[in-house]
C-alpha cells in the first residue's frame, strides 16, 4: 500500500506537469488572442515528428533536435497567423473550420509519410533516479521540471515583458491597442509563433516519454481544453492549479477504480467544478461570462434566401424518384445517412439561433442512439417505441443539463456543454457491459428487414417532417424571441423575454430532434460506437452547418450534402480521401465565407460583373 501511495504521489506531479506542458501553448493563444486553436493537437504532433526526424534520421542531439523543431513550428506559427488566423479574428466559426482543415491536412500527410511505424524520440536523459522508496526515471523528472519552468517563463513573459503586456492589451481591446501604436499583427504573430513553439517542445518531450502517432494530438487536445477552460479565460498561471487537479484525478482514480470508470468519474468531477465556477478558477468575470470577441457566434449579414417553396418541393420530388433511377443500395445507404445527419446538423443550428454554442450535440445524438440501442437489445422494446422514446429521453436530459447551464453564456456555455459531451462518452465506456464500451453496441433490432429502399423513404420522410417542424419554430414568435436573445440578452430581458427559459426550451427542442436522429441511426446501422458522438462528432455536425451557411435555414442541409456526400463518393482515393474534406472547408472559408447558400448570389454577381466588364469593353472599343 505504501508503495502505491508513493508511486501515485509522484504520478500526480508528473502527470500534472505533462498536462501543463501540453496546455501552455494553447492557453497562450486562447488567453492572449482569444484564438481557440483546435489545430494545437496537430501542431504538437508535427513538432514531435520533426524532432524525431532530426534526432533519429539525421542523428542530431535530442535537445538540439527539439530546439530546431520549436523554431520550425514557430515559423509555421507566423505563417498560420498571417494566412489562417488573422483573416478570421473575431470569427469563431471560421477559426473552427480552418483549424479542423489544418488538423486533417497535418494528420493525413503524416499518416501517409510515417503511418504504420512505431516511432519514439530517444530519451533526453537516460537512467532512473532512486532515493529510498522513490524510484522515477530521469526522463519523467525532466518532463516535470520543464513543465514547471516553461509555465514560469511564459507567465513571466506575458506579465513582465513589453511584448507580453502588448499581447494583453490586444486581447483586451484590439482597436485601442492599434490606436496606441501597438503593432498588432507583429505581436499576434509573435504570440502564435510562441504558442506553436511551445507545442513543438511538448510534442518532442511526449514523443520521447510515450510514442509518436499521427493521431496523438486528438486525445491531448481534449485534456488541454479541460485544463484551459477550468483555469479560466485570461489566466495562464491558473493552468498550474488546474493541471494539478487534472493530474491528481488521472493519477489517483485509476489506482482506486478500474477500467474506463475512472475516466468517467474524472470528467464528471470536472464538469461539476465548472458548474460551480463557470468562468473557471482564475477567469475574468466580465459581463457574467460573456465571451471574448473571437469566440462569439458570429451572425453576419443574411445570405440569399433559399425559402422558395417550389424549389424545395422540386428537390423533394427529385429525392422521391431517385431510387427509381439509381438501384445502387450503396448510394441509397449514403443518402440515408445524409438524411440522418441533416436532422442532426439542423437541430444544432436551431440551438445556435439563441446565441448558444452547443458543443455536446454529438454526445446528445449518442444519448439517443444508445437509449434506443440498449432498450432494444437488452430490454426487447419494439422499434416504434424506442425511437420516439429515445428522443424524449434525450430531450429530458437536455433540459436537465440545460437548467444549470442556462446561466452560462457564449464561451462558458460552449465549454460546459463540451465537458458534458466528453462525460457522456466516458459514461458509455464505463458501462461497457451494456453499451459494449469502446468496441460498440451491436445486435440492435433493425426497423425493416428488407432492402435499403424502405429505409431511404423512411428517413427522407423523417428528415422532411423534422425540417418542417424546425422551420416552423424558427419563423414563429418564439424563433424571433430566440434571435432577440442572441442579439442582446439584456435588451431581450428588458422587454420581458425570459432568457433562461428560452434557452432551456430551445436546447430541449434541439436535443429532441438530435435524439430522434440518433435513435434512427442506431436502428438503421444496427451497430453503434462512440466515435461518432465525441467532440469531433460535434465538430463535424457544426462544420456541416458552417459549410452550408449557419445563417440560413438551408445551410445545414446543403452543408451536409456537400461535406458528407462528396468525400464518400471519392472513396477510391483511400489514404488521400481526407484532403477532400479539408479542401471543401478551406474553399468555403476563403471563397464563400457566408457558406454555400451564397453560391447563387456569388454566381449572379460574378455574371453581372462579367457582363459589366464586357459592356465596358464594348464601350471602350467603340469609343
Amino acid at each position, binding site marked *: 500500500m505504501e508503495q502505491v501511495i508513493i508511486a501515485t504521489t509522484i504520478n500526480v506531479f508528473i502527470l500534472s506537469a505533462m498536462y501543463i506542458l501540453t496546455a501552455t501553448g494553447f492557453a497562450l493563444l486562447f488567453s492572449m488572442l482569444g484564438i481557440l486553436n483546435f489545430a494545437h493537437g496537430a501542431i504538437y504532433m508535427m513538432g514531435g515528428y520533426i524532432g524525431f526526424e532530426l534526432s533519429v534520421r539525421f542523428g542530431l542531439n535530442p535537445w538540439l533536435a527539439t530546439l530546431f523543431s520549436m523554431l520550425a513550428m514557430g515559423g509555421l506559427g507566423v505563417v498560420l497567423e498571417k494566412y489562417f488566423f488573422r483573416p478570421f479574428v473575431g470569427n469563431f466559426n471560421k477559426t473552427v473550420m480552418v483549424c479542423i482543415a489544418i488538423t486533417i491536412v497535418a494528420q493525413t500527410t503524416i499518416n501517409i509519410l510515417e503511418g504504420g511505424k512505431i516511432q519514439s524520440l530517444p530519451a533526453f536523459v537516460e537512467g532512473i533516479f532512486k532515493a529510498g522508496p522513490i524510484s522515477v526515471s530521469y526522463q519523467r523528472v525532466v518532463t516535470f521540471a520543464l513543465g514547471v519552468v516553461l509555465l514560469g517563463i511564459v507567465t513571466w513573459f506575458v506579465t513582465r515583458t513589453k511584448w507580453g503586456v502588448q499581447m494583453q492589451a490586444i486581447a483586451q481591446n484590439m482597436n485601442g491597442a492599434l490606436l496606441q501604436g501597438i503593432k498588432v499583427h507583429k505581436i499576434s504573430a509573435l504570440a502564435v509563433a510562441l504558442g506553436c513553439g511551445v507545442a513543438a517542445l511538448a510534442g518532442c518531450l511526449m514523443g520521447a516519454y510515450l510514442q509518436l502517432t499521427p493521431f496523438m494530438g486528438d486525445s491531448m487536445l481534449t485534456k488541454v481544453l479541460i485544463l484551459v477552460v477550468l483555469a479560466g479565460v485570461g489566466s495562464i498561471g491558473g493552468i498550474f492549479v488546474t493541471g494539478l487537479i487534472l493530474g491528481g484525478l488521472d493519477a489517483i482514480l485509476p489506482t482506486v477504480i478500474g477500467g474506463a470508470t475512472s475516466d468517467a468519474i474524472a470528467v464528471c468531477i470536472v464538469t461539476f467544478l465548472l458548474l460551480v465556477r463557470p468562468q473557471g478558477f482564475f477567469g475574468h468575470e466580465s459581463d457574467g461570462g460573456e465571451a471574448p470577441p473571437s469566440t462569439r457566434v458570429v451572425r453576419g449579414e443574411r445570405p440569399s434566401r433559399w425559402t422558395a417553396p417550389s424549389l424545395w418541393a422540386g428537390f423533394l420530388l427529385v429525392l422521391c424518384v431517385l431510387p427509381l433511377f439509381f438501384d445502387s*443500395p*450503396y448510394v441509397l445507404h449514403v443518402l440515408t445517412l445524409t438524411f440522418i445527419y441533416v436532422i442532426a446538423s439542423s437541430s444544432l443550428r436551431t440551438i445556435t439561433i439563441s446565441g448558444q454554442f452547443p458543443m455536446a450535440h454529438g454526445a446528445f445524438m449518442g444519448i439517443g442512439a444508445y437509449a434506443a440501442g440498449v432498450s432494444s437489445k437488452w430490454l426487447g422494446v419494439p422499434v416504434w417505441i424506442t425511437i420516439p422514446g429515445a428522443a424524449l429521453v434525450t430531450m429530458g436530459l437536455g433540459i436537465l443539463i440545460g437548467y444549470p447551464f442556462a446561466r452560462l453564456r457564449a464561451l462558458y456555455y460552449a465549454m460546459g456543454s463540451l465537458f458534458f459531451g466528453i462525460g457522456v462518452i466516458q459514461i458509455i*465506456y464505463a458501462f461497457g457491459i451494456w453499451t459494449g464500451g469502446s*468496441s460498440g453496441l451491436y445486435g440492435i433490432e433493425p426497423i425493416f428487414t428488407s432492402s435499403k429502399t424502405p429505409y431511404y423513404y423512411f428517413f427522407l420522410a423523417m428528415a422532411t417532417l423534422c425540417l418542417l417542424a424546425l422551420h416552423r419554430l424558427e419563423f414563429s414568435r418564439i424563433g424571433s424571441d430566440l434571435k432577440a436573445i442572441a442579439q442582446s440578452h439584456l435588451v431581450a430581458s428588458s422587454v420581458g423575454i425570459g432568457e433562461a427559459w428560452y434557452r432551456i426550451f430551445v436546447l430541449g427542442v434541439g436535443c429532441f430532434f438530435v435524439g430522434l436522429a440518433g435513435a434512427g441511426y442506431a436502428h438503421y*446501422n444496427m*451497430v453503434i460506437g462512440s*466515435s461518432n458522438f465525441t467532440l469531433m462528432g460535434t465538430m463535424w455536425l457544426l462544420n456541416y452547418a458552417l459549410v452550408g451557411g449557419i445563417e440560413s435555414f438551408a445551410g445545414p442541409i446543403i452543408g451536409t450534402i456537400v461535406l458528407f456526400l462528396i468525400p464518400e463518393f471519392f472513396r477510391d482515393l483511400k489514404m488521400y*480521401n481526407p484532403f477532400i474534406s479539408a479542401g471543401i472547408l478551406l474553399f468555403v472559408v476563403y471563397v464563400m465565407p457566408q457558406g454555400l447558400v451564397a453560391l447563387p448570389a456569388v454566381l449572379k454577381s460574378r455574371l453581372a460583373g462579367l457582363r459589366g466588364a464586357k459592356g465596358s469593353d464594348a464601350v471602350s472599343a467603340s469609343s
Partner: protein
Amino acid sequence: MACRRMAAIGICIGLVITLVAAFAGTGNAQQAKTLKIGSLKAMTGFYSFYDTADAMDIRNVAKMINDKGGLTIKGQKYNIEIVEEDLKSSLEGTTAAATKLAYDKKVKFVVGPAGWFGPAAGAVFNPNKILYVLEFSTGQPGELGPYGFMGGISSITDAMLILAAAKKEFPEAKKLVCVTADDGSVPYLMKGVKKVLARDGYTMVGDVITYSQEMQDMSPIAAKLNAASDADAIFSINMVGPAFANTLKGVRELGNKKPWIGATVMEGPDLITIAGKSAVTNLITLINKPNAPGNPPIFDEVYNMRTGQRQMYTAFGPSALISLVSVIKAANSIDPDAVKAQWEKMDTVDSLYGKAIVSGDESYGIKHHALGVATAYQKGMNGEVTFRGWVPASPIP
C-alpha cells in the same frame, strides 16, 4: 520472282503464327476467370496505423497465388482480384465500406476487418450471405457470425500461446497478476482466459486490472501492478503494443523486475524504442519475425514481397486470405454457403503460421468458426531481445 515467292510465303507464315498466337492468347484469357475478394481495411484514421501494411501484404498474397497459377475450382481457373475498401477506423465507415463491397462491388468473400469492427461488418455481410474472415478477434462473440470466421489470431489464442511459452521460460511463475484493456471485451475474454489459466495450472492474483483505452500515461497501472506483491509474474493480455510497452516501462521504473508474460505481438526493436533498453528484461512476448529459424516458408515469402519503408508485420490479414483460399479450394466451390459448410466441418485450415486448428466452440459460442494458430515468441533479457522459436498451435477451448 523467286524472291517474291519467298517473301509471300514468309508473310503467310508470319500471319499464320500471329493468328495462332492471338487465338491462343484469347483462349487463355477466356479460361481464367476473376474471383473478387474484398479487403476491408482502415486506410485512414487511427487504425490505419496497423492496417496499411497489412493491406499491402494481402495484395501481395493474392499476387503470389495468381503467379502460382491461381485457383482451380471444378476445372475452372480463377485469378484473385483484391477489392479494397477503407473502413475509416469507425463502425459507421465499416458499414459504408461493407455496403459498397456487398452491393456495388458484389463480392462474395471478404478478408477483414479487425475484431472491433467485426459486428459492423457482420450486420451487412451476414444477411447477404457474404463470407468474411476476421483478421483478429478480441473475444467478443458478436465479432463472429453465421458467415463470419476468424482468420489470423485472437486475444485468447495469444494468451494461450504465450502461457505455453511461459511454462518453458519461467517455470517458477505460477501466481499471475493480470492486466488487460477495458474495450468492452473483458467479460468474454476473461471467461476464456480463466479456463486456460486453470488448465495450465496458473492462479490469478486478485481481479484482472483494467484500464481505459484512452489512457496515455500508464504509470498508474504500473503502480497497481507493482503493488501485487503476491504475484510471481505479470501477465498482460489484450494490450496494444504502445500501451504494453509503456506499462512495462512504468513497472520497471518502479524497480520491479518480475517476469513479464506479454500476449502482445510486437517486434523487439519497437519494444525497445518505446520502453527503453533497461525496461526490456525478464520478459517474453509474441513476435512476427520474418526470416527467422523455423518460420513456415510462406511466412517469409509474403514479407519478402514487400517494397518501400519498414512497417509493422502484423501478418493477420494475409493469414486470413490464405485460410480463406485453402477452404475455397477444399470446398471446390465459390459459393459462400458451400465454403461455409466446408469450413465448419474441417479440423484444420492453412494459415500463414502453418496449419491452424478449427476450434473455439465454447469460448465463442459458435461451432468451428475460430482458429488456434501457432506463433513465434521472443525473450527480452538485459536490453537484448532474442528470437526463441515457435509455439505449436493448439485448439481454443
